[in-house]
């Protein structure tokens, strides 16, 4: 991994109002650890712990890309659908928290969702139908390393088994994915190399983990492009008038 590589890794951090670090502190720590950007997951109902610093100020001060996102957490597809309509155009990334079969399926079948977060948490499960739907609709499935990094015993064993099942499905159906340490405070952040080493210890390849970290940045860049004024439809965009013609 060279210095130039480092700028392309992104990490998604929780920036809810009950989080134990402010967005600015998370950004500062992530920058020191070699990330090029962070995605702030915020709950639309709770607001973020942005305090007085805006994402743009943070990005300027610490030289890191700050991506605004919304994480919709609900147990009913109906209200998730409403929230999607409300937030899709306002945020760069829209993340839907999974955790039940119903929500996982809803997210996988909804192209407006960018990332299906923590699909195996709580009673959640993913099967081949959901994996195929996610691949078809370009919904990124999240591998959440928080249990591997911060729990032990039976809880961790179950989380590892879930990660393995998810990994096998993702490989089989070529589902796009993202990786995250699920950090809720600056002390819970881990550098890309460390996450890759942990990934290798639990059966991922080094490249697969780094790829999952890069995917956040790629997704953010794509959505910014789509939401910028110049995009009309695939292959058609508003450009400068060319003098030659």
């Amino acid at each position, binding site marked *: 991994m060279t210095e130039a590589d480092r700028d392309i890794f992104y990490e998604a951090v929780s920036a809810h109002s009950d989080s*134990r*670090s*402010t967005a600015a502190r998370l950004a500062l720590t992530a920058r020191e650890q070699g990330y090029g950007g962070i995605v702030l997951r915020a709950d639309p109902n709770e607001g973020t712990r942005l*305090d*007085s610093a805006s994402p743009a100020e943070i990005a300027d001060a610490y030289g890191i890309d700050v991506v605004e996102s919304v994480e919709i957490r609900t147990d009913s597809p109906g209200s998730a659908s409403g929230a999607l309509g409300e937030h899709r155009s306002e945020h760069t990334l829209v993340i839907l928290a999974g955790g039940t079969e119903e929500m996982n399926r809803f997210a996988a079948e909804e192209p407006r969702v960018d990332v299906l977060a923590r699909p195996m948490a709580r009673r959640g499960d993913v099967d081949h139908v959901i994996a195929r739907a996610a691949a078809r609709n370009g919904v990124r499935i999240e591998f959440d390393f928080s249990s591997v990094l911060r729990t032990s015993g039976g809880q*961790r064993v179950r989380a590892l088994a879930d990660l393995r099942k998810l990994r096998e499905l993702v490989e089989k159906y070529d589902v796009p994915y993202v990786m995250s340490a699920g950090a809720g405070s600056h002390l819970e952040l881990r550098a890309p190399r*460390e996450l890759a*080493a*942990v990934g290798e210890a639990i059966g991922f390849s080094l490249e697969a983990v780094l790829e999952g970290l890069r995917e956040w940045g790629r997704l953010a860049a794509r959505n910014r492009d789509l939401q910028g004024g110049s995009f009309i439809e695939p292959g058609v965009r508003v450009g400068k008038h060319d003098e030659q013609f």
Partner: protein
Amino acid sequence: MCALPKHLRPRWRYLAVEIEREPDASLDRRAFQRALWKAARELLGDPGSADCDLTVMRFRFDETGERGEVIVRVRREEREEGRAALACVSDVGGGPVGIHVRGTSGTIRACEERHLGGRPDSGTETSVPFAGADRPAREQGSGRVDIHVDEQWVGATTLDVETETPDREGRE
């Protein structure tokens, strides 16, 4: 016992590790070593943990500071496993800790010279306006501020407190 001839001795790598804790948490060398062994056993199992042979060689932590520097020794062939075990150290002695491997070297001296010793960090007590009130805080180097809010420490930076203006407080 005789020292082994040089070509039979194990080859080591030294990891320069930066650790960070909350302001009033306790953290010492023994507790950190225990947490490291525990993390290695839980992640890699007994054989993997024995192969790594993770040992804390240097432990520098200012009593009042929140950030310290540690050098951890690992067998050269197992350095990625050692790094993974280190990443899984999430709390020491009941308090959460942040871990960041700054780099690796083949000798302790090279490790110290190349990767460590940059930041003298002993915080200063202060009080800052945050979330609508003046709160006790501890300022660290490079803009870090830890603020005591409702029996908990909140990690912030100067960016979060400096721009607090009367008109914002009025809105709240």
